[in-house]
């Protein structure tokens, strides 16, 4: 079974540019989550999709971040325009439906804003 796949693994862009991160969850997982870790901090929740619907977006930092999950399969996270404080590692996780299902993580996208 393929795990959670994230692309790209690294991205370096200049302040003010746009970047789009992609996440392919484990096949059949309805729940998809985005998290990020900024330097020296713990991993923080951004948002949660159930299929194509946003269930919880309480962790999104501001309106420069836009997440989509068209068709309930892969998801994208767009940052526009990128700011210096957006640098960090962005993780995607997925889980099956039903309570207490563990979340399985991808290896993350390391985003550097110059």
């Amino acid at each position, binding site marked *: 079974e393929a795990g959670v796949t994230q692309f790209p693994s690294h991205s370096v862009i200049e302040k003010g540019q746009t970047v789009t991160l992609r996440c392919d969850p484990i096949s059949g997982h309805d729940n998809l*989550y985005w998290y990020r870790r900024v330097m020296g*901090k713990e*991993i923080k929740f951004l948002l949660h999709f159930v299929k194509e619907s946003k269930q*919880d977006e309480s962790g999104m930092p501001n309106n420069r971040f836009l997440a989509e999950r068209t068709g309930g399969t892969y998801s994208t996270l767009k940052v526009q325009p990128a700011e210096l404080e957006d640098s960090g590692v962005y993780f995607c996780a997925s889980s099956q439906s039903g*309570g207490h299902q*563990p979340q399985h993580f*991808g290896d993350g996208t390391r985003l550097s804003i110059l």
Partner: protein
Amino acid sequence: EDQVTQSPEALRLQEGESSSLNCSYTVSGLRGLFWYRQDPGKGPEFLFTLYSAGEEKEKERLKATLTKKESFLHITAPKPEDSATYLCAVQAANSWGKLQFGAGTQVVVTP
């Protein structure tokens, strides 16, 4: 506010030297407590889920326990391949599934 605190921040062990990691939490109703292992440059790898006080889970040299206020991850006779950062995360009963992570404990096991 929900909070997760892990200690120690770092732990250096000799191969075979058993030890415990601590995860203290405050949450408004616990749905689950999760332990993950993370290697450099990789995403968190799921280890255990604990749901209620008194519960224990084991996997190879790792054993996780849970009380109403904290969880312990016991590493018995560790090997160098157990070197990693161990993360604790809680899921609140009133959440839709989001995990709140601690800062992690970095474990180094030397031969």
